[in-house]
């Protein structure tokens, strides 16, 4: 999400971050993020060597640790300490969703490296995912906070429903934007929301702040996923960490395509529909569809929607106490805002 322009909305006075990457905003919590990695490593220390091997491979495969960072930042609004286990749980849940996604999509690569299912097999990947999710719940249970455990369980259910919705809508070209947004919420936004709420809850922040951070997380998550879906049509393989056009080849219909099919030029739309109805979509056809979508207004419209969510997120930031963390949140939301 680099190369963003400075925004010229009423909050302009707060901005000083063009050309910045989200990870660069995590400077103040670098030490805590290192603790999260240590905690994650320790969380499987009692497991058998097969689990340790696969899990260490995943840890070393990278990842921006965005979700634990959100939890750690959110914990700054309370007074209690030790949010590391909760933050680690958020990364575990995210990892599980990626491991299972790779099996579902039969992906060979993730972030440019072989997926676990590719290396160790599908059964291994599924069992490791189930193992890690159960561990995540055990960690959350140690906080003895019924609201927190309930939220994690609810989130996992919503994430599954989002995935099921996506599968049942595969290659369904008659989707509307509302339906797509429901799916985005379940697929991505609920977990981001949980990250913020968890940090605030664990640290003992007041309920108003918990709710505001939850809403901020929701809007940010929506902006994040829509922007990610746009990347499938605008970025190269190196940026994506997976083959270009993967979504199209998997039959996943996202906002740029939905918009294009509804408002694009009739003859182009019919051509794209014809291609997508075929058994397989070739690389040349992916390039052709990407080009057709880029010349339509689909990308601009998607960015407009991202902007709207970013502004909503910023409105929540304005309700938070004025401090350094609030400023970081403001900058994170602005990362997704892009002027026309």
């Amino acid at each position: 999400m680099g190369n963003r322009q400075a925004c010229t909305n009423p909050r302009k006075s707060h901005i000083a971050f063009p050309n910045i990457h989200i990870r660069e905003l995590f400077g103040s919590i670098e030490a805590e993020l290192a603790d999260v990695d240590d905690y994650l490593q320790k969380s499987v220390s009692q497991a058998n060597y097969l689990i340790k091997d696969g899990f260490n491979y995943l840890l070393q495969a990278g990842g921006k640790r965005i979700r634990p960072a959100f939890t750690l930042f959110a914990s700054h609004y309370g007074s209690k300490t030790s949010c590391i286990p909760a933050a680690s749980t958020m990364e575990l849940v995210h990892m599980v969703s990626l491991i299972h996604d790779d099996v579902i999509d039969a992906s060979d690569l993730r972030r440019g490296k072989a997926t676990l299912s590719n290396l160790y097999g599908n059964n291994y990947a599924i069992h490791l995912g189930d193992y890690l999710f159960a561990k995540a719940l055990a960690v959350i249970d140690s906080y003895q906070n019924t609201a927190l455990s309930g939220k994690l369980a609810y989130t996992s259910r919503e994430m599954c429903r989002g995935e099921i919705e996506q599968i049942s809508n595969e290659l369904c070209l008659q989707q509307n934007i509302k339906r797509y947004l429901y799916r985005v919420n379940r697929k991505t936004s609920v977990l981001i929301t949980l990250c913020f709420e968890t940090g605030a809850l664990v640290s003992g922040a007041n309920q108003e702040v918990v709710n505001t951070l939850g809403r901020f997380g929701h809007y940010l998550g929506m902006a994040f996923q829509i922007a990610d879906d746009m990347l499938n049509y605008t970025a190269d393989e190196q940026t994506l960490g997976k083959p270009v056009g993967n979504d199209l080849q998997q039959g996943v219909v996202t906002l740029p395509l939905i918009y294009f099919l509804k408002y694009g030029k009739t003859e182009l739309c019919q051509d794209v529909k014809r291609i997508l109805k075929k058994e397989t979509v070739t690389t040349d056809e992916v390039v052709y569809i990407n080009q057709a979508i880029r010349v339509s207004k689909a990308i601009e419209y998607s960015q407009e929607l991202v902007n709207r969510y970013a502004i909503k997120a910023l409105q929540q930031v304005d309700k938070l106490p004025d401090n350094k963390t609030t400023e970081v949140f403001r900058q994170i939301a602005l990362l997704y805002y892009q002027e026309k």
Partner: protein
Amino acid sequence: MLKILMPDIMPEFMAIEAKNNHFIKLNIGKLHDVRSMLENEKHLWMPLLCILSAKIIKDVTIKTYQLAEIFHLLSYASQLHWSLPENNKDSKEDMKIDVLSGDLIYSRIYSNICQYGLQPYLLPFSNLISAMNESLILRDFSRENDDYEIRVFASLTESACYLGGSSASNNQLDLNVLKEFGYHLGILKSVYDKGKNIDEHYSSWQNCWDRVEEIKTSKRHCFEKILRHMGEEWEIDKPVLIQERVI
């Protein structure tokens, strides 16, 4: 087997079964045909044992039925994730659905635990599920597949008996008896289902009968019935019990 042996528990269980099956039909039924899974009687084993254990130790509570519901779901979820095809290029669609359906049912299990206020049971269930999956990973990389599967099933049955019992009473002595009984019964049931010979696991046969003997209530005859049924299949009798052996 339990369905035939425990007709008196079935009516109580039917509401639970209907609720879970409705959830599965509604959420997964639109993706693929779930009939064979829902009609498979092996999924009744753990929830019925859970109810039976509570009845034997004292009596069922609402908590018992809620736990039985969770064990029923756990049986479905573990079946879906138990053994997936390694080459999903050929069976990609089925595979996708099995993975997602299993995930959804697992998440339902965790949600139910929280919604029902069964917080003290969250850790035992997480531990059970993580241990089960750890063993299944070892199974896939081991030559002695059957041993791991037998042990996984034994842990599930052990938990069904122990947690079911704990929903009715907190007498730790009784609960430990149920726990041990459940573990060995799981081994026997697994050996029985695989059509294997009992010889290698005869100690579990002995153990089960010894534990049944320690149960003081008259309702223990339900457990005896299960064991006798298996014994007939293997053509073995009730062993000499601890008390008789000591004498």
